[in-house]
C-alpha cells in the first residue's frame, strides 16, 4: 500500500500521492500493515470488531427489511446500500457527536449509526415526510436528493465551525456520479480557499444509476482533489477498518486546523439503484459476482475467525439484535398514521404569511365538505 501523505506540499509543485488503494483487511480477512492507517487503529480490539460486525449487520438488515417493505407496498421507494455497509459503518463510527453529517439519499446506514430511528427512514421513504428526524438531534442533515448540493452545505457548515472556533468537523457524503456536478467541484474550491474543516466522503460504488464510473471520471476520483489543493485518500470501501482509519485521520486533521480532506471509498452497489431500477438492463452479472467475493461483512467475519473469535456466536448475537430491530421496525410501520394535511402549509415559512394563511383557510373550508381528514382552523 502506498504512503498517502496528508501533508500538503509546501511548494507550488504538484505532489500527488500514489493513489494505491488503502487497505488493511484483505478480502480474505488478513490484517496487513499500513504505514498511514495503522496509527489510527491502535485502539482496535476484538470487542470493537464485534461491535462493527453488529453495526454492519444491523445496517444490512435495515436495508433488506426496507427493500421488503417496499415490495409489500409499505414504502414508495428504497435506495439499497447493500455492499456499502463497511463504507457507511466505518466512516460513521469514526465521527464524534459534534461532527455534522451532510448525507445523500443513500446514507441510511450512517443515519442509523447517528442514532436516527429506522422508523424515521421508513416514514421518509414511504412518502410521509421529507425528513424522518430532526437534523440537530443527530447532527445529521436532511437527506439530499439533488446530486452534489450537500457537498457545499458541508463546506458552509465547516466554515461556521471555523468561525466558532469549535472542535468539530463536517462530513459530506456523495457518490461517484456526483463528482461530475459543478456543486461538488465548487465545494472543493471553497473548502480549499477557506481551509474548511470538512471531509468529502465519496462512495465510489461504480455506478450512477446505469452509468459506470468511467463515464464520469477518466482517472481515479481521488486524483482530482489534489489539483484543488485538497489531499485525498483512496481506500478500500469494503474494508471497514481502512474506512474507519481514513475517516478518523481526515476528521482529526479537520479538527486540528488541517483543512479539508477527500476520501474515495471504493465499493460497489450490489443491488439496484433503487427498488424502481432494473440493473440487468445495463450491467453484467459477472461484475456483481466478482464484488460479492469482497463482501464487507464476510471479510470482517474471516478476520474475526483469524483472530480466534467465536464467529458463530457473535454472528448469532448480531443476527438476534437485527431480528429484534426488524421486529420493532415492522411493529412501528404497522402503527404508522398518515400525515395530516396541515403538514402542507406548516413551516413553509417560519413567520406569518397572509396569502398562504388564506390558501390554508380556503382549503380548510373546502375539506369541511368531505368526510376525509380535516384541517384545523387558525393554526399555522
Amino acid at each position, binding site marked *: 500500500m502506498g504512503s498517502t501523505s496528508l501533508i500538503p506540499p509546501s511548494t507550488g509543485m504538484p505532489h500527488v500521492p500514489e493513489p494505491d488503494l488503502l487497505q488493511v483487511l484483505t478480502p480474505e480477512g488478513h490484517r496487513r500493515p499500513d504505514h498511514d492507517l495503522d496509527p489510527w487503529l491502535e485502539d482496535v480490539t476484538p470487542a470493537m470488531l464485534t461491535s462493527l460486525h453488529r453495526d454492519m449487520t444491523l445496517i444490512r438488515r435495515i436495508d433488506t427489511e426496507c427493500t421488503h417493505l417496499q415490495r409489500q407496498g409499505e414504502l414508495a421507494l428504497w435506495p439499497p446500500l447493500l455492499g456499502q455497509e463497511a463504507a457507511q459503518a466505518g466512516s460513521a463510527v469514526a465521527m464524534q457527536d459534534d461532527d455534522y453529517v451532510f448525507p445523500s439519499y443513500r446514507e441510511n446506514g450512517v443515519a442509523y449509526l447517528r442514532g436516527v430511528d429506522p422508523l424515521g427512514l421508513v416514514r421518509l421513504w414511504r*412518502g410521509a415526510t421529507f425528513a424522518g428526524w430532526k437534523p440537530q438531534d443527530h447532527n445529521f442533515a436532511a437527506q439530499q436528493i439533488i*446530486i452534489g448540493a450537500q457537498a457545499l452545505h458541508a463546506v458552509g457548515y465547516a466554515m461556521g465551525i471555523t468561525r466558532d472556533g469549535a472542535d468539530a468537523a463536517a462530513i459530506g457524503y456523495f457518490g461517484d456520479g456526483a463528482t461530475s456536478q459543478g456543486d461538488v467541484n465548487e465545494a472543493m474550491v471553497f473548502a480549499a480557499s477557506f481551509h474548511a474543516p470538512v471531509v468529502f466522503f465519496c462512495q465510489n460504488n461504480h455506478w450512477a444509476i*446505469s*452509468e459506470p464510473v468511467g463515464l464520469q471520471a477518466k482517472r481515479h476520483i481521488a486524483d482530482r482533489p489534489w489539483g484543488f489543493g485538497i489531499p485525498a485518500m483512496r481506500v478500500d470501501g469494503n474494508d471497514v477498518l481502512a474506512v474507519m482509519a481514513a475517516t478518523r485521520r481526515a476528521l482529526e486533521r479537520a479538527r486540528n486546523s488541517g483543512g479539508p480532506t477527500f476520501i474515495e471509498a471504493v465499493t460497489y452497489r450490489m443491488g439496484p439503484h433503487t427498488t424502481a431500477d432494473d440493473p440487468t438492463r445495463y450491467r453484467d452479472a459477472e461484475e456483481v459476482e466478482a464484488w460479492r467475493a469482497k463482501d464487507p461483512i464476510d471479510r470482517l467475519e474471516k478476520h474475526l475467525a483469524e483472530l480466534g473469535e467465536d464467529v458463530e456466536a457473535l454472528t448469532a448475537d448480531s443476527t438476534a439484535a437485527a431480528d429484534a430491530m426488524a421486529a420493532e421496525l415492522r411493529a412501528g410501520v404497522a402503527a404508522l398514521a398518515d400525515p395530516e394535511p396541515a403538514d402542507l402549509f406548516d413551516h413553509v415559512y417560519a413567520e406569518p404569511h397572509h396569502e398562504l394563511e*388564506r390558501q390554508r*383557510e380556503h*382549503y380548510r*373550508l373546502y375539506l369541511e365538505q368531505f368526510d376525509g381528514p380535516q384541517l384545523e382552523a387558525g393554526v399555522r
Partner: protein
Amino acid sequence: MTGAAAENLTFGKAINAGLRAALADDPAVLLMGEDIGQLGGVFRITDGLQDEFGEDRVVDTPLAESGIMGTAVGLAYRGYRPVVEIQFDGFVYPSFDQIVSQVAKLHHRTHGAVTMPITIRIPFGGGIGSPEHHSESPEAYFVHTAGLRVVSPSTPQEGFDLIRAAVASNDPVVYLEPKRRYHDKAPVDLTAPLRPLGPAALAAQGSDVTLVTYGPLVKTCLQAAEAAAADGASLEVIDLRSLSPIDFGLIESSVRKTGRLVIAHEASRTGGLGAEIAATVTERCFHWLEHPPVRVTGFDIPYPPAKLEHHHVPDLDRILDGVDRALGRPNSLDSLDPFAAPVPLGSTSDHTSGA
C-alpha cells in the same frame, strides 16, 4: 384524426416513436442525457434508440445538467439539433443558467446568426408517489423567459406530434412530459404530417364555462366536464398544448361565448400560468366576463410528500368546485367570499406613506 397507420401506443411509446422519427429524419438530431442509453431513461422514453442509432446519436452524459445544457449549446453552434433529457423536473435547475442566459438568448444575441434548435425534454408534474424534487411543475419559469417556447402534450398523439414539432423548430423548446400519463394508451397516427407548435386544442366543446388547462390535467378536466354535464353544466375544455406562446385566440373566442373562465394547473398559484391567462383574458374579454376568472392550482407550497400530494394536485372535485364558483353556484369558498373580506386574513398591513 387517427388514420390508417394508427397504432395503439402508450404516451411514453408515442414520444419514443417521435424521437425515433426525428433521429431518422435528420442526422443533425442527437439525444443527450443521463441514463438514456442502455437503460433507455428512467422512464424508458428513449428505449432502444441507442441500439438503433448508436452511441454517437444517443449519448449518455456525465451527471451534470449544466454540462449537458452547455454542451448542447456548443453542439447547436456547430449545427446540431440536440434533444436533451432532464431526468426529472426538479433536476433542471442546475442548468437554469445555461437555459436562461444562453439557450434562450443566443439567437437574439447574435441577431439571428446562430440558432439554438435545442429541445429540452422534462418529465414533469406529480401524482406518481415520488420522492422530493420528482414532481415539480416548473413551467412558469420558462414561460416568463423570453426566447424559449414551451409546450406540453396531453395525449399520446400530441406526444408524438409535439416532440416532432419541437425538434423541427429552430427555436429552443421546453417540452414538458406529463409523467403520470406515460402509461395512458391511445391510437397514434405515426404518419401524421409535421404540425405547427403553437395552436391550442378544443378538447371538449361546451357553452357554460371555459376550462383551460394543459399537460397532466387535461384528462382530469375532461373527466370534470363529463361530471359537470351530468350536473347540468356544459364545459368547454381547452388544452393549451403550447404554454409559450399561448394561443389566446381560441381561449378568447370560447370565453366570449361562455363568459366564464376556469384555469387549472398543478403548479403553485402565485405567478403561475393561471395568473397570465386570467390577466390576458380579462384584458381582452373584460366585457364578456360574467365572473372573474377562477384559478384551481397547487398551493404556494413546496410540492408535498407522496402521501399528501392528492391534497395539492387539483383533482376532479377541486376543479368542479372552481367551476361552481365561476357559475356562481354554491361552493366551498362561499364563507370566505373575497368580496366580503377586503383585508386578507392575517395581514399586518401598516399603510404608512413611503415619501
